[in-house]
């Protein structure tokens, strides 16, 4: 049983506690907590229990007065046998002192909680004695005193107890037990907690706690979850939906309601938004409403430039707002009504007094056209709106132009003084004035409401007229009719007008009706027959010259063709050339006939057309030829167009030819074997079996070759060496065996043994044969388990050369390997060499249906490119996006599969002619330093295979992460491809070309041409297995 007792002082009961949790008491609670913790942790005092209790009780009482309860339960102390010592008293003193201080503070402010009476033990009965766990407050003795023992059983522990102190020794923290000095004031061991002072102020009044969310436990009415939005300013319209959308950001809206004026059904622009709590509990409806209001409390809410007020919908604020607005609207309506009434009355008055217009003109008397626009207005009547009015309402000329669009004003002049609406005709101006002045309304931009416009008429004065000189239509005659004194004058004037116009008309006629058509007509080429003839002859000459030129060019091309790259490399047969000849001449002759008949046909066609004409048939021929060539070279391959009958015929012919060829090459034995012997001898000879017949050689040759030279001749082998009776006789003679030995003397088991041996030998031979058939390599005995079970051997590394014994893709390194599997292929286990012939003949058609040939590829590419070109033309811009990789066009169909050389390899899906482009090595174009970095990183990450291809000293193409399948091409010391760096559009590209004709399904290889590595450990072994293999890559 432990000597340490712990007691916790029970905190005060419920109601008060909840009160304090709601409202913080203005006390430095934190400070107190520190002290109490000090007390419990550092001062484990041992002393008189009764006093301890008392002090504890006093302590509690004191602090209950201050209603500090938070840390009471932490109040821990232990009793010892010793009496309360000095330190405890000291603590008590301190506490009391502090309380006194607090009382002093409280004296200054209002006492908040009534002082409690000192605690009295009331339940002095037996019943409650059981509650006294270890201390009897009446007897004031410890109850279990006999059972208690000193806590200090280890004499090393100091009497006064100890504290564990952290000490630093050489940078390491170590806890050291140190004797406790009771006189030493205690310290909070937590370093940081003590140092900080509380910054909370003493409060002299109750303070609001942080907001407590309303939930199902809350009592009282829920906080508002609705907001009311209403116009802060008048006019302007806004769509309801935009208001709703604006407030969506605060939370999920469950209800949105716009309100309308009940009197006129016009929108009040008052909206009610009710928020909803989302199901996920992420957003709270009350919070959303509060937030929506809070955000707009100060600045107001602007939605699409319209200011709104946002308030929470509590205390009937919605109704208030609505009623207010309705009231306002009613007042406004009344006002408008009155205004209208007033105006109609005025109008009536005005119509009665006909001097309305006169008034206006009188008004305008003092308003004149300003000097600077006099010329513009040109003495025409104008309506005037003063600038003071316009600027006040921020109106523009355009407003007037729009409003007065149905009147025949000549122009509007925006002047400093105001807007002048100039009319050509005074009548029009008068009509406009009468109709619009003080009736027309334009929306004022400042007041945001329509205002009436008062127009002032400015009538031009007679004497200051300005005439436009030289104008045909005389404006001066507008207002007043020109009067002529006599009829003769009038006639004179009219004649002048007529003569003037007549002159103009005559000149116009001569020009347009006479000279123009005459020129045009004479320019007709048919009116110059001799010129035409001349020209035609000239053209003919030209044409002929052009023809000659083209023909020459063609001839040249032909001669060039003799040395062209295709022929040089022997890719196309000479038959192609023969065929090409007549075909080429044909279009030329056609051209001539065409040119003779068609007049405007251009002979010297654009280069592009000429080229097209020429190359199109040629290409066709080429492809035809290549087709036939592929058939020749690869008889088991049928071309893509195997359906065409003549191709098939051709094929048959070839095979027949092949058959004849093989017959002729084998020597004919009939001639040689014809004996030139006499009849008797020949009869004698014929009686001898064929193999024993004598041959015509100087020295007699043995009939059977000597097969006894094998080192370990097995029993079977030994048996096999004895071919005939002669052999047997010789053997018997050698061994001295009597042929007439009784069979019974022989061991009866011998026969069995021999039989057993033979069967074992046969089975072994069969296994070996099947192994050879499967893998074409004898099974290596190193692979055989030494213990009889491979499983028992454990793991061991198998050298690459041995893997060929059992891994199918390691076989036949230099033969075309059919690891590329198509779905049509039968999934039998027949080896490739056997299957190839049969399968390729039977299935090639169906296989080829799936794999597009490079020819199809090119065709579709061409089509695609045309599409893209059209697109480009439509877009009209040179876009990087649409630029095509030209190299893709000539790409051969290839695929990757497991390789005999290393991991993966690239395989041709169709036969590839030598010198043809196969594929581009595509990858990320990076700089040298980047490549070095990447190489290191790849090695670190365990990417053993290197797919970095150097283009030049600065550029490397990295196909490791982003790249085409060309990266799978393996190295071979006797490669069938080569990598060339070519420039396409200024960019260096790596392109793989065929070095020789490549059969279908053959693995593509090229020489990596790695630099020679000096360090032997660094050298990479080559697995290509070529006869001339250098055995290292580098």
């Amino acid at each position: 049983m432990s000597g340490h007792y712990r007691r916790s002082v029970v905190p005060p009961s419920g109601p008060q506690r909840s009160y304090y949790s709601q409202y913080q008491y203005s006390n430095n609670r934190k400070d107190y907590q520190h002290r109490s913790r000090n007390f419990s942790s550092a001062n484990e005092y041992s002393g008189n229990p009764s006093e301890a209790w008392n002090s504890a009780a006093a302590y509690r009482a004191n602090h209950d007065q201050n209603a500090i309860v938070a840390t009471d339960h932490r109040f821990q102390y232990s009793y010892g046998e010793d009496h309360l010592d000095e330190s405890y008293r000291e603590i008590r003193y301190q506490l009391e002192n502090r309380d006194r201080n607090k009382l002093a503070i409280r004296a200054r402010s209002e006492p908040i909680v009534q002082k409690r009476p000192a605690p009295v033990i009331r339940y002095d009965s037996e019943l409650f004695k059981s509650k006294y766990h270890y201390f009897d407050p009446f007897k004031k003795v410890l109850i279990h005193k006999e059972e208690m023992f000193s806590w200090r059983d280890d004499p090393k522990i100091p009497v006064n107890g100890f504290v564990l102190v952290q000490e630093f020794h050489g940078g390491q923290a170590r806890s050291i037990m140190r004797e406790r000095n009771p006189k030493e004031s205690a310290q909070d061991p937590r370093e940081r907690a003590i140092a900080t002072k509380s910054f909370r102020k003493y409060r002299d009044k109750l303070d609001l706690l942080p907001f407590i969310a309303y939930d199902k436990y809350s009592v009282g009415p829920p906080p508002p979850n609705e907001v009311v939005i209403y116009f802060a300013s008048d006019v302007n319209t806004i769509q309801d939906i935009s208001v709703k959308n604006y407030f969506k950001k605060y939370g999920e809206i469950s209800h949105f309601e716009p309100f309308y004026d009940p009197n006129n059904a016009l929108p009040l622009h008052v909206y009610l938004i009710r928020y909803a709590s989302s199901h996920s509990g992420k957003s709270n409806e009350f919070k959303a409403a509060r937030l929506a209001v809070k955000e707009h409390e100060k600045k107001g809410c602007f939605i699409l430039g319209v200011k709104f007020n946002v308030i929470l919908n509590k205390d009937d604020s919605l109704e208030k707002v609505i009623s207010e607005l309705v009231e306002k609207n009613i007042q406004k309506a009344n006002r408008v009504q009155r205004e209208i009434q007033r105006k109609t009355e005025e109008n009536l008055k005005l119509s009665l007094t006909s001097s309305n217009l006169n008034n206006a003109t009188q008004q305008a008397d003092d308003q004149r056209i300003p000097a600077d626009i006099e010329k513009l207005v040109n003495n025409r009547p104008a309506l005037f709106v003063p600038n003071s009015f316009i600027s006040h309402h921020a109106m523009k000329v355009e407003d007037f132009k729009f409003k007065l669009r149905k009147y025949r004003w000549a122009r509007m002049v925006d002047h400093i003084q105001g807007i002048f609406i100039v009319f050509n005709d005074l009548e029009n101006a008068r009509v406009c004035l009468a109709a619009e002045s003080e009736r027309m309304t334009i929306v004022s931009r400042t007041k945001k409401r329509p205002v009436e416009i008062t127009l002032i008429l400015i009538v031009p004065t007679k004497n200051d007229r300005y005439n436009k000189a030289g104008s045909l239509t005389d404006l001066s005659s507008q207002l007043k009719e020109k009067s002529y004194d006599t009829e003769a004058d009038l006639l004179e004037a009219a004649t002048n007008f007529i003569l003037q116009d007549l002159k103009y008309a005559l000149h116009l006629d001569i020009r347009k009706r006479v000279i123009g058509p005459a020129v045009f007509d004479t320019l007709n080429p048919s009116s110059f027959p001799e010129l035409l003839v001349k020209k035609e002859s000239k053209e003919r000459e030209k044409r002929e010259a052009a023809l000659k030129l083209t023909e020459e060019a063609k001839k040249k091309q032909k001669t060039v063709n003799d040395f062209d790259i295709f022929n040089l490399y022997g890719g196309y047969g000479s038959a192609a050339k023969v065929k090409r000849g007549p075909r080429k001449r044909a279009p030329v002759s056609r051209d001539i006939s065409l040119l003779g008949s068609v007049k405007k046909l251009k002979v010297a066609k654009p280069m592009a057309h000429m080229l097209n004409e020429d190359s199109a048939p040629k290409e066709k021929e080429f492809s035809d030829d290549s087709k036939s060539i592929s058939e020749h070279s690869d008889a088991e391959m049928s071309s893509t167009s195997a359906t065409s009958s003549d191709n098939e015929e051709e094929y048959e012919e070839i095979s027949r030819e092949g058959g004849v060829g093989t017959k002729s090459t084998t020597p004919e034995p009939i001639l040689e074997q014809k004996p030139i012997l006499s009849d008797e001898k020949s009869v004698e000879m014929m009686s001898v079996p064929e193999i024993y017949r004598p041959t015509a050689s100087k020295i007699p040759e043995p009939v059977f070759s000597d097969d006894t030279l094998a080192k370990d001749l097995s029993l079977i082998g030994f048996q096999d060496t004895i071919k005939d009776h002669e052999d047997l006789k010789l053997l018997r003679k050698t061994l001295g065996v009597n042929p007439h030995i009784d069979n019974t003397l022989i061991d009866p088991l011998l026969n069995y043994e021999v039989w057993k041996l033979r069967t074992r030998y046969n089975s072994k031979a069969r296994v070996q044969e099947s192994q050879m058939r499967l893998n074409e390599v004898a099974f290596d005995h190193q692979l055989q388990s030494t213990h009889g079970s491979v499983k028992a051997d454990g793991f061991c590394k198998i050298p690459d050369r041995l893997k060929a014994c059992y891994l199918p893709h390691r076989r036949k390194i230099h033969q075309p390997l059919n690891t590329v599997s198509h779905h049509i292929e039968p999934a039998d286990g027949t080896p490739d060499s056997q299957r190839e012939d049969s399968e390729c003949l039977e299935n090639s058609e169906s296989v080829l249906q799936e794999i597009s040939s490079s020819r199809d590829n090119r065709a579709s590419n061409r089509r695609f490119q045309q599409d893209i070109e059209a697109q480009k033309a439509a877009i009209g811009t040179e876009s990087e996006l649409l630029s095509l990789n030209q190299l893709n066009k000539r790409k051969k169909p290839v695929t990757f599969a497991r390789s005999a050389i290393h991991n993966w390899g690239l395989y041709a899906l169709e036969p590839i002619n030598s010198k043809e482009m196969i594929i581009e090595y595509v990858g990320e174009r990076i700089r040298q330093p980047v490549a070095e970095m990447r190489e290191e990183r790849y090695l670190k990450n365990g990417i053993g295979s290197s797919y970095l291809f150097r283009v030049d000293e600065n550029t490397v193409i990295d196909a490791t992460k982003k790249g085409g399948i060309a990266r799978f091409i393996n190295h071979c010391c006797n490669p069938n491809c080569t990598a060339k760096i070519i420039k396409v559009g200024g960019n260096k590209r790596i392109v793989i070309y065929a070095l020789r004709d490549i059969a279908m399904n053959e693995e593509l290889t090229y020489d990596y041409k790695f630099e020679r590595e000096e360090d032997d450990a660094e050298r990479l072994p080559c697995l290509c297995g070529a006869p001339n293999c250098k055995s290292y890559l580098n």
Partner: protein
Amino acid sequence: MSHNRDKASDLAEQFKREGHFDRLKEQILSRSLAEQNGETVVQTIRSEVSAIVRNMVLEDDNLLFKNRGSTSALIESQLLKDGYQKLTENGKGIKVDEYVSTSLSDPELLEQVKGNLMTILQSNEKE
């Protein structure tokens, strides 16, 4: 707004509207000239123009085979330059400007016009 304009111009307008103006024009243009062997003005001008154009073409046959429209427009502008200078260059053509001005100042023509105007005026007054 024509009612507001000069009476004289109104009269002239009426004159035109009744077809006198066009008739006058035709009359002047189709007048046969004694010095041109009885050919009308239009015919003279036409033959002159075609002769000039022919010469031009003979000088430069390219004119014939270029765009006919634009070429003829260019030639036309050449002919109109400096008061039909080109038409009179070879001496035998008519001076269009001169002819027009003389024919307009012809007293007979003036009389004719005035007479027409008078009848128009009279008919107006009757109305």
